[in-house]
């Protein structure tokens, strides 16, 4: 139990802290100085606590609801993960995949859905979480991704959205539903980044301005190519535009994901490749694919 001296000290620190909390920065400094004059250790403690509080305040930790609350499942039955709310592929806001809490769906694609998700640890940040539809062999995808991840980590370019992490979440152990996911840098610009074509159209951009955007995309892709990494699925929806200080900035997303998803892209045998195509799983997006890629070639950077 605390001694009387401890209690007095605690009360003093708290009173000073709460007094300082209402003051502007300069007045806080003066208050800390007064506290130091009274007792050097007290002043130091106060200063460090105020610094922590300022940091908390800056990241919104004081006001924030700790986490988005999932909609309660209601019934007292077992595991009623119902289809309530904005459900995409059976996923809905508030659900947790690995360390990520789904917040809102961004879109759906051929492979699955993309969500804004919140990562809690080791750093707290928002990410774009691409959740793949089940049916893909998650183990194989992850094994390939692990190989890709090292290469992807070498890419540091403002025009390329970073891929942070990949994993597999098990949703329903009984039915063995496992969902592979990729966590990527969330491209923002006011809201969420827009596809390059949408951006150009809605802003009524001039030809020059459009070419400027394409040039940016080319520089980013060029950077990846110098590192020996090929995207394999370049298309407007993978070229997002966000505005930074009013200047449109292009970011290429999904780097390395197409390759991780498809064994044939990673250099599997011709037989496997043919089988995949027969099953209708074609790498990339046909409308935006290079002829040699669609023809089953290696998809080189030429």
């Amino acid at each position, binding site marked *: *139990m*605390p001694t009387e001296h*401890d*209690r007095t000290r*605690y009360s003093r*620190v*708290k009173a000073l*802290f*709460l007094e300082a*909390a209402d003051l502007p920065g300069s007045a806080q400094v003066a208050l800390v100085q007064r506290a130091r004059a009274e007792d050097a250790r007290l002043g130091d*403690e106060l200063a*460090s*606590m*105020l610094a*922590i*509080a300022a940091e*908390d*305040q800056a990241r919104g*930790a*004081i*006001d924030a*609801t*700790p*986490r988005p*609350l*999932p909609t*309660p*499942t*209601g*019934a*007292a039955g*077992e*595991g009623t993960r119902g289809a309530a709310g904005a459900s995409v592929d059976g996923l809905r806001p*508030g659900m*947790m995949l*690995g*360390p990520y*809490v789904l917040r809102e769906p961004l879109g759906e694609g051929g492979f699955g859905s993309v969500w804004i998700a919140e990562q*809690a*640890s080791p750093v*707290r940040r928002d990410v774009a979480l691409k959740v793949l539809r089940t049916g893909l062999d998650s183990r194989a995808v992850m094994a390939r991704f692990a190989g890709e991840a090292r290469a992807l980590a070498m890419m540091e370019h403002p025009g390329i959205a970073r891929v942070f992490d990949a*994993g*597999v*979440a*098990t*949703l*329903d*152990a*009984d039915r063995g539903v*496992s969902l592979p996911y990729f966590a990527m840098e969330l491209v923002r610009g006011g809201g969420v980044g827009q596809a390059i074509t949408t951006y150009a159209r809605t802003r009524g951009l001039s030809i020059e301005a459009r070419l400027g955007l394409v040039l940016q995309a080319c520089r980013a892709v060029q950077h990846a190519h110098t590192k020996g990494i090929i995207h394999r699925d370049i298309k407007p929806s993978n070229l997002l535009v966000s505005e930074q200080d009013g200047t449109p900035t292009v970011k290429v997303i999904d780097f390395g994901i197409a390759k991780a998803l498809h064994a044939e892209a990673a250099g599997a045998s011709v037989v496997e490749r043919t089988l995949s195509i027969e099953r209708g799983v074609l790498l990339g997006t046909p409308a935006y694919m290079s002829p040699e890629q669609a023809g089953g070639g290696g998809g080189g950077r030429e």
Partner: protein
Amino acid sequence: MADPAGGPISSSTDPSRDPARDVTRLLREAASGDQSSHAALLSRVYDQLHAIAAARMRSERVDHTLQATALVHEAYARLVGDVRLGQVDRAGFFAVAAQAMQRILVEHARARGRVKRGGGMGEAAARRKIPLDVVDLAAEDDPEQILALDDLVRRLGEYDASAAAVVRLRFYAGLSVEQTAEALGISERTVKREWAFARAWLAGQIEREGLDADGA
């Protein structure tokens, strides 16, 4: 380390056919100072939280994190359901839920601590890793952190019951500022001030002492 729940918890009440009414009754009785009703309520909430946590632990095998907030709200949904509780009863529920959740986290941490003992963590790591937001039952989290935090919150309570109450509701029940204010019957401004202070105090203790998981 002091026992936050004040003794072993066992299931002493049979779930009646109308659990929500039963919970409401227990809440009222506990609020009027009936210790046995409080104990029965705590055990009911504890059992429910435990069951939900266990079910989720089974179904989210890979890399799972159980969110205290989500557990508490699911327990609320199951135990109270659609019954509209008055403010005092809601407050009572969340206070009990925070207590039960804290208890579960500590037991979970102790159980895992027994499995992987040894290797005290460095001071820097402890400082970096103790989560001062919401406590989760995370697979990767070091159990020592949860125990250390439990100890710190208990210590804070010895100095300052109101700051500790805010911390418990925010940490262990995951309530928002508004909900916490409602639950404690204080203003939102006061919640924010107490919360800001308590976080800074806890962080300061962690920094000053490194990790003190033994409650010495």
